[in-house]
């Protein structure tokens, strides 16, 4: 079967969760295709972890329905094809790294010979081979995160769900997560990344959804974000008013302040045209700096600055 004919990795409709009076997730509708690296963004307390737990059947939804890899949420056997790294990396710390992975191999119903082969492979992948016989109790937070990742990839999953995989980690740990996500994407695995660390998401994800107070506010392709709207800062002399007025041909949003000029464009291809227009109009251009809207700008724009409080 080709990837296109497979059911989507995640498809949820009107998912809702109330804890007593509190609505953790209000109305979540989402579709994640196979092979996508999907970023689930939102401020703390937006309902991201609750949503992830509902996907995995850890929390029973109050209302709504959904499918994971084509099977209803909470389907036991479908979870054999899903890998999950929970938020706080808390594991049975009296086990050694090898014992821990072997246990989870058993829980995935992997045959013994496969477990025996996969466990050292994964320890190698996350750089923990020298600590294979060490108990998890002696592990640092970064090492626990690595062993958690190894656990989530043990079964060659079709879908990996990572809940805040890099929060509180040093740059080396973050780099590792990023590299692993990239590798998974190349293998065609779907990755669902729950994060509030935007720089991570910006680097790794294909598509993002913004969630606030348990609702999705917007879903965007990161590619269109990169190619889309940009602001241009210009420093120039001899900026005559009629030249500035002529810029309205490309931009509705032009601000001039002495030698400084800023305008927003919808397409990068306008840049050389504007440059030529300015030069031919006798303007001395000292600098022309295009700046894309960062994910952070978009986040603030969509979610607001109140942090969902």
């Amino acid at each position, binding site marked *: 079967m080709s990837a296109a004919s497979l059911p989507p990795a995640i498809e949820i409709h009107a998912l809702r969760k109330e804890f007593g009076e509190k609505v953790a997730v209000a109305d979540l509708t989402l579709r994640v295709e196979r092979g996508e690296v999907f970023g689930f963004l939102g401020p703390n307390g937006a309902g991201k972890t609750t949503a992830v737990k509902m996907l995995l059947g850890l929390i*029973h939804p109050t209302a709504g329905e959904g499918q994971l890899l084509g099977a209803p949420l909470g389907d*036991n056997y479908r979870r054999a094809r899903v890998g999950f790294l929970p938020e706080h990396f808390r594991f049975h710390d009296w086990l050694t790294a090898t014992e821990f992975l072997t246990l989870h191999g058993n*829980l995935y119903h992997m045959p013994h010979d496969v477990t025996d082969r996969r466990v050292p492979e994964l320890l190698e992948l996350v750089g923990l081979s020298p600590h294979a016989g060490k108990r998890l109790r002696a592990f640092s937070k970064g090492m626990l995160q690595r062993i958690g990742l190894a656990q989530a990839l043990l079964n060659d999953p079709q879908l990996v769900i990572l809940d805040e995989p890099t929060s509180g980690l040093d740059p080396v740990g973050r780099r590792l997560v990023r590299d692993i996500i990239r590798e998974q994407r190349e293998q065609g695995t779907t990755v669902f990344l729950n994060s509030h660390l935007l720089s991570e998401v910006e680097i790794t994800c294909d598509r993002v959804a913004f969630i606030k107070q348990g609702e999705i506010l917007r879903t965007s392709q990161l590619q269109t974000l990169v190619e889309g709207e940009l602001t241009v800062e210009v420093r120039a002399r001899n900026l005559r008013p009629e030249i500035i007025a002529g810029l309205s041909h490309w931009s509705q949003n032009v601000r001039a302040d002495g030698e400084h000029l800023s305008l927003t464009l919808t397409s990068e291809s306008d840049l050389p045209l504007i440059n030529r227009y300015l030069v031919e109009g006798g303007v001395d251009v000292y600098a022309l700096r295009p700046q894309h809207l960062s994910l952070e700008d978009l986040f603030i724009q969509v979610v607001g600055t109140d942090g969902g409080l």
Partner: protein
Amino acid sequence: MTTLVIARLTFREAARRKILLAALLLGIVFLTIYGFGFHYVNVELNRSGSSPGPLERNEIRNFLLMAGLYVVNFLTVMMAVLTSVDTLSGEIASGTIHTLVSKPLRRWEIVLGKWLGFTGMLTLYLLLMAGGVIGLVYLISGYSAPHTSQGFVLMWLNGVLLLGVSLFGGAMFSTLANGVMVFGLYGIAFLGGWIEQIGSFIQNQTAVNIGIISSLIIPSEALWKRAAFEMESPLVRALGFSPFSAPTVPSPVMVGYAVVYAIVALILAIWQFSRRDL
């Protein structure tokens, strides 16, 4: 299959956390003290000639045996509760449960696996302790009590029953609240047992009924009384009174009730754990 993986994990955790070692070492200390104590009493019994007579000597041996088993029964209950009181609530609170439950397994397999692991542990513990007491008495004096296997099974059931209650509490409450609940129930059973015993002695039916009601709330003390009744000497049975049992012996119906109680507690633990949000 997954159930067995979890059972093995439970066992391994107890071993890694030195629970098994502590239980084994203290068990050996207990049996050593018990063996020496019994030995010196037995030497005295054999030396004192015609008084007490051979019949009374066995009464004293039976009394000491019952005293030993009474403590073993208590320790087994403690073992069953203390090992399991934190197992579900603790894993839920720390979050270690998340990596387990997100695996391709059903939640009942986790609860049943843990139950099997703890039941295995308490069976071994009881075999060591009750087997040790009964064996020491036999080796030192040649005395063996009647119906020790029935007594053993009833004490085992007592441990399993409280294990089920503790697992249910762990699926429902925090560790601390669970501990308060299980020991609170155990206290009710203990108190009810004494009220019943004294009520029966002074022939007050209301007091006896209070005892029966407490046995219905939790039949753990009733199981011990039945176990003691099975194993005590024919003379004590005829007299109908000893510090370790009561003149009103819990009926086989009460034993049946306890079996059902233990099974229902396990089912409720599974049901509660399956429905709750983690």
